């Protein structure tokens, strides 16, 4: 596969190699040499392209890892020495810890709300026959991307204003949860669909009430699904900038994603020391969480009962 791609590339791209094509027919020895040459040339071009792509995608990550430790942070990814002074700066900044705490409040709050509501809704939607159920789910899924998107910000702002929820974290949690719920219900319904009904029926025959069936059987069985959805929701909210930016005006209530945006020095220049260091600190919890859940449950977006 790779050689074919390489050959095609060498035939169309590089002039020096394309000449060798005429030699392939004239003799086995020459043909072999030319073929090998073409192979090497093709591979080289391919590797060059791959390296370029890797650099292109790895550079921001490299920047994220290197710049916080650099004494002269800028938009370049370079390590001209090693210092922890940037972290001291960050810790000294009065907005750092409150903003991270706000991020936690928003994301954990939304995540819990989403898990609880999505589990109940997914169970109901999976077990109760409602005409047009699937269409309803698809429509909600389609519309949900609008709720947390730019287009709906004005009506949402007005709605929350009338409800008196502007500049309150609860309002942000509600809006973000609303946007995440359809996808969460969709994912969890998949898990619930995969539970044989005989589990619930068996419990029912033993006299379990609906709430006992939910607590003893259904929820434990879909726990991996709930963990997946919970982490997914947490990460979504953790990284969301627009909704808290629009709905929260008091800086002491804003989450890290919004506060990072305000790290400019007096001259209007971005404060690379703070921004890069904060960005690193900000991304660590998400990575840790991902590793934890991946270890515990395996990341599965398909339903299924393991063990």
């Amino acid at each position: 596969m790779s050689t074919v791609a390489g050959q095609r590339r060498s035939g169309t791209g590089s002039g020096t190699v394309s000449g060798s094509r005429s030699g392939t027919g004239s003799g086995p020895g020459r043909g072999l040499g030319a073929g090998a040459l073409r192979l090497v040339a093709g591979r080289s071009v391919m590797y060059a392209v791959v390296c370029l792509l890797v650099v292109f995608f790895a550079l921001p990550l490299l920047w994220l890892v290197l710049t916080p430790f650099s004494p002269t942070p800028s938009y370049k990814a370079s390590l001209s020495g090693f210092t922890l002074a940037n972290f001291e700066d960050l810790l000294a900044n009065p907005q750092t810890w409150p903003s991270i705490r706000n991020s936690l409040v928003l994301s954990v709050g939304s995540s819990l709300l989403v898990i609880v509501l999505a589990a109940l809704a997914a169970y109901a939607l999976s077990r109760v026959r409602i005409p047009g159920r699937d269409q309803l789910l698809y429509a909600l899924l389609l519309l949900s991307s609008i709720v947390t998107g730019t287009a709906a910000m004005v009506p949402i702002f007005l709605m929350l204003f009338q409800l008196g929820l502007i500049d309150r974290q609860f309002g942000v949690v509600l809006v973000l949860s609303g946007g995440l719920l359809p996808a969460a219900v969709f994912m969890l319904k998949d898990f619930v669909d995969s539970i044989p009904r005989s589990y619930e029926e068996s419990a029912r025959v033993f006299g379990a009430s609906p709430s006992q069936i939910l607590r003893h059987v259904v929820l434990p069985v879909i726990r991996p699904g709930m963990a997946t959805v919970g982490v997914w929701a947490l990460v979504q909210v953790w990284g969301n900038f627009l909704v808290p930016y629009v709905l929260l005006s008091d800086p002491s209530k804003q989450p890290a994603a919004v506060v990072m945006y305000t790290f400019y020095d007096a001259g209007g220049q971005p404060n690379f020391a703070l921004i890069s260091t904060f960005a690193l600190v900000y991304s660590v919890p998400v990575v840790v969480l991902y590793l934890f859940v991946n270890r515990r449950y395996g990341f599965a977006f398909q339903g299924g009962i393991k063990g």
Partner: protein
Amino acid sequence: MASVTLTGLVKEYPNGVRGVDGVDLQIADGEFFALLGPSGCGKTTLLRTLAGLEAATEGRIDIGDRDVTGFEPGERDVAMVFQDYALFPHMTVTDNIAYPLRIQKVGRDERSARALETAQGLSLAALMERRPAQLSGGQQQRVALARAIACHPQVFLFDEPLSNLDARLRLEARTFLKQLQKSLGVTTVFVTHDQAEALAMADRMAVMDGGRIRQVGTPREVFQRPANTFVANFIGATPMNLLDAQVVGGALDFGGFTLPVPGEGGRASAWPVAEGDKVVYGVRPEYVQCLPAPAEGAARGEVTAVENLGVSVLVTAQAGEQSVRAVVPESDEPALGDTVHLAPSSERVLLYRADGDGELIGR
């Protein structure tokens, strides 16, 4: 312990299918009762209606002296073992077996002790900390049984509990289950599509078709005197010969050959049949002799198929317009194309009405 009485029971699904269509049945206290029938005949529906998982459309269900028709499943005092066992995958064997006790609010220590006690009787004591996924099919089946036993119900309901086991294990489980039921003495309704299971295990059995019960009786009665052509055709390792015939001149005309009416003297007048009546002549292949020479009361036929059954051979012969099967010892095996003379033993022959439900004509 309790008897079970079904009166005029109907279960109609929302799509109009009548899974159970007017069933009357009495199951005695402590009886092992098998419900047998082909796939889709309504066995599971009947069992689920009995358990309360489906609401009866019409009719009445009594367990013991209680009318439980409108009761929730949990109030009926029954335990069900599902075809897929329905063990809870996130619970250990202990927790699975103890689940009914947990619902009954028995304390944790006591229910573990009682689960262990039940499990010991089913040789599960070494597996108590495992999850269902870590058990073999046979072990899962016994855990499901233990869970049903642990709640001390009035009635056991089993929906094809052996069908997920391999053939060898199934035979062992059959014997085991039968002994277990006898020692516990709990009324048991056992659904199966495997007639050998029903015949081997049941005290009494019902054969179902299309949501109706076609015959109720002991396995011996059902095997020896099927009440209609459906049961006659369904029961038996090799299906019964069911030959169309007409009463002509006091004998039976099969179109191509005639045989005397079975029984003493071979007179049609001994039967409630009239000249010209169409009947179905039923005789098991095991009761048909295959003779090399013509004989009194034998039909001449040509062998069209020979199938090996182990110690015996199933011979299919064409006699006139009829295809007749006979089981012969392997030493008498005829060759294809041979001419044979088929002699049914007349005391084993049953006559059925050719019209209606194909009911047995009493002798």
